[in-house]
């Protein structure tokens, strides 16, 4: 079974991103970039499926400008077999990314596509579901456990009320939640080996997709700042403040 994993290049999760003073965009000068944490979990899951003999090949795909090849190499170092870079400039909406991924799905015909549930920059939480609709595949979003059973995929999902288990026909889409697995670190020899793995580059034209934007960003600004309040001396003062100053308890 072939597994396709979508990985996105994002700002490292430790970086506190700020809006530029003029409000035109966020300030990403000299910030550390990394693979989106949820995508790292997606790669790990695919590699584990291969190690378990369920997957035969793991392909990592990323959409974006040239530098996202770094994140494809990271995925290759973590155990993916080959990479696909769909080279596209500018800000791409989830719908466009989903269409480009659909193009790759049509070429590669994977039985399973694993994506992150959301990227920590755009926070859209859309791409996997959109790909599901475009490719007419079922989806197991926010997955905390997956198991291939014959021609079905069982998925345990994290939902508002608790956990939900679904059975999906294959081919299927999975989006990862944080507790699906704990990703490994890439070893130095594997990082070296990854440099030699195959990486194909496509353009949106190759995939027959037009990159049009439906949403434009007019401005960005910082959220309303919360000021630090006071430190109370003890529990008695805390209760007094909550009752008589904040008036949130009676």
């Amino acid at each position, binding site marked *: 079974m072939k597994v396709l994993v979508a990985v996105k290049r994002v700002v490292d999760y430790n970086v506190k991103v700020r809006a530029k003073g003029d409000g035109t965009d966020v300030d990403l000068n000299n910030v550390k970039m990394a693979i989106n944490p949820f995508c790292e979990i997606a790669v790990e899951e695919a590699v584990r499926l291969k190690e378990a003999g369920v997957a035969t090949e793991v392909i990592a795909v990323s959409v974006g400008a040239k530098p996202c090849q770094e994140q494809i190499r990271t995925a290759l170092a973590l155990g993916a077999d080959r990479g696909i870079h769909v080279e596209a400039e500018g800000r791409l*909406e989830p719908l466009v990314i989903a269409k480009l991924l659909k193009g790759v799905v049509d070429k590669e015909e994977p039985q399973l596509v694993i994506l992150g549930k959301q990227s920590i920059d755009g926070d859209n939480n859309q791409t996997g*579901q959109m790909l599901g609709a475009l490719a007419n595949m079922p989806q197991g979003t926010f997955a905390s456990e997956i198991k291939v059973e014959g021609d079905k995929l069982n998925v345990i999902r994290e939902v508002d009320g608790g956990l939900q288990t679904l059975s999906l026909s294959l081919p299927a889409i999975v989006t990862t939640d944080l507790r699906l697995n704990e990703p490994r670190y890439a070893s130095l020899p594997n990082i070296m080996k990854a440099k030699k793995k195959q990486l194909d580059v496509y353009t949106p034209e190759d995939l027959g997709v037009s990159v049009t934007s439906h949403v434009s960003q*007019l401005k*960005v600004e910082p959220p309303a700042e919360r000021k*630090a309040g*006071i430190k109370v001396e003890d*529990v008695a003062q805390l209760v007094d403040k*909550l009752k008589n100053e*904040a008036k949130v*308890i009676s």
Partner: protein
Amino acid sequence: MSTLVIAEHDNSSLKPATLNAVAAAQAMGAEIAILVAGANCAAVGEQAAAVAGVSRVLVADNPAYEHQLAENVSLLIAEVAAGFDNIVAPATSNCKNTMPRVAALLDVSQISEILSVESADTFTRPIYAGNVIATVQSTDAKKVITVRATAFDAVAAEGGSATIEAVPAVHDSGLSTFISEEVAVSDRPELTAAPVVVSGGRGMQNGENFKLLEGIADKLGAAIGASRAAVDAGFVPNDMQVGQTGKIVAPDLYIAVGISGAIQHLAGMKDSKVIVAINKDEDAPIFQVADYGLVADLFEALPELEAKL
């Protein structure tokens, strides 16, 4: 202009997040209908018809929609959407699961988790874990939008008298099957709707110690939440996680206990009206957003707090 709001429900009761989504729909200034897709969900249809400001309720009652399977419900919504300009849903796990599929079927973008309606086509939404608020404008003729419930004051659940119509369309894709569900049962208010939330972090040390929070929650009528570290460590189940990738809460009072205040946690609670932090490390970042900080060992402070309430 007309707006279709997707109801969040469990086939017997309408969930409060729907009322916040209706408020966002009102801000868009169009006539409002609510779609209830479920099985044996007539009671939900009636509750939806009573919501203030709603003129029509559409009920699609069929076994195919019982468990809100995204494959089936998205086909239904995409069909019903033909008669509307805007499709609006609360950003619950169900709607986050289904709505992007709807948008893709309609070949439009989705605007996720809006915080405000600036005009008919312009909205604000958080990016980068809420560290940046973006103002975005959509050029799609039909808009698919999810709403961050905490950003809109709920409309009244009573007072409306909408008409109720049945939607006969049946979409059963056959691609997915519901197997089972583990739903946490609790007498406490729902985390995302509770007026008071008491949350514990890694500092709680184990699940047993969450009992220390329960006594306080009982006295305050509070829901109990947790940081990701507490969930990952297995102290408490995943549905209690507050944060960028968990639940977003904005209660009148949020009490963070043994939580350091990572940006991903703050993203889920920093719009609370009053924040209290109890942490033994006086430099913990949580104090930078807390209205009242208590530097103390939680194992001493919590029993004392419970006694004084």
